[in-house]
């Protein structure tokens, strides 16, 4: 699973950091860093984080596969 956070929208509520601390971390007071590729054992936590985000800034899904059509 891949994630991207719309940091235009992110306001630093940091709900994701509490729900999936191995994936999301605050960098400074409100800058967000995250693992773009989600380890399998974190997928459920990331789903919860995406659902809990007050500004709905987290998009999780699969990337375009190399040989895609």
């Amino acid at each position, binding site marked *: *699973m*891949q*994630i*991207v956070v*719309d*940091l*235009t929208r*992110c*306001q*630093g509520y940091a709900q994701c950091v509490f729900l999936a601390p191995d994936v999301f971390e605050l*960098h*400074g*007071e*409100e*800058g*967000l*860093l*995250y*693992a*773009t*590729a989600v380890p399998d054992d974190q997928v459920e936590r990331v789903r919860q984080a995406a659902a809990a985000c007050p500004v709905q800034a987290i*998009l*999780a*899904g*699969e*990337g*375009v*596969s*190399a040989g*895609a*059509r």
Partner: protein
Amino acid sequence: MPGDLQDGRIVIVGASLAGLRAAETLREEGFTGSLTVVGDEPHPPYDRPPLSKQVLLGKASADTTALPMRRDTDADWRLGVAATGLDPLEKRVMLADGESLPFDRLLIATGTRARPWPNPEEASLDGVFTLRTSDEAGGLAERLAAGPGRVLVIGAGFTGSEIASACRERGIEVTVAERGPAPLVGALGGTLSKLAAVMHRNHGVDLRCGVTVTTLRGDGNGRFTGADLSDGSRVDADVCVVALGAVRNVEWLAESGLAAGPRGVACDAGCRAFNMYGIVTDDVFVAGDVSRFPHPLFGYQMLSLEHWGNAVAQAEVAAHNMVSPGPLRRPHLAVPTFWSTQFGLNIKSVGVPTYSDHVVIAQGSLEARRLAVVYGFQGRVTAAVTVDMAKSLDYYKHLIETAAPFPPPLGSADRAIAADITIPSDVPDPSGLSHGPTVALTGHLPDRRLTVVQPTG
């Protein structure tokens, strides 16, 4: 007829953020025809902002930033092959492998590339990098992980500053050379550029402003060893990152008859490309960093934006308009917004800070390194920048959208003492910077005429 617009052949040239989001939106809007996405890089669409942050910090590898899809695009992804030309009469896109793709409607989303160091021989020295693609980021991250003695960053725009910040966080010595008076001055003006300079120096960056790099030096084996500066000084370093802004990928359109030039491909508010006579086309659309478009909030000047959010928003509007009949088309009127994290600060901007004559510190203070700066032009709010105050940004966005008077009215509880003191915004002429600002007013700065600088590289 609307039914016809849902069918046919659509080609998207550009397989990054704008190209991907446009492809998804086309399907979402009911397009059932054939969809082909052409990309010159071999990689499926990936996200670029993490490349100068997570990747350089060593927290993620460069090949793991693939963008998640919102939905299946049912597209033919032609990756690793560049478009080399466009025949608007025959309605074909020519590809580097000799093939030509017929289309009924075309979306141009070829974005930008890093501006290279102007001397090709010096640019090819081992240890000299630019940072735009995941391959470039991977190579640079590898060098940073090896623990270089010093990194030289040329250009203190957002990318250069983020690179310097990542180096310092990893304990790597870094020198930053900027032609302008301070970091970020081209994007944010005088007040916040002073804070940026303080942040660089407090974090141990050897910041040199008002200088240019004249020569990159190598040893006998073609390895980068250092650089000469215009003030006569010399910097010894193992790695050099050239962060001189971006060049728009328009060369492939040179013979197309479209209004494509160094500042991008001109289009109307509905993302339809103009031809070179200024006549709008009906089947060629533009989105993302390669576009420039008129914005009513900023004097209808043509804006070109290198912003993540703009790529998404404009791609969605372009895709909608590609499958919608005239009266149902929408304008792209999103207020420009971007962010940067560097030296532990979260900097967010809304509006166009360079479209300003004065600023006020509306909340917080420079000393606290937590503040909101509001920009005004001729008595109207045109932009705001927050530092570690992202929750306030929507309020200021509302002021911009409603053309609120400047200085802004009382609106927040923690109003700064300086809130009524307007100071000049000190936006410099872009030609005096070593990086390109990420928002370009492609006509005029509000109070003076711009000099068009043709890239020499």
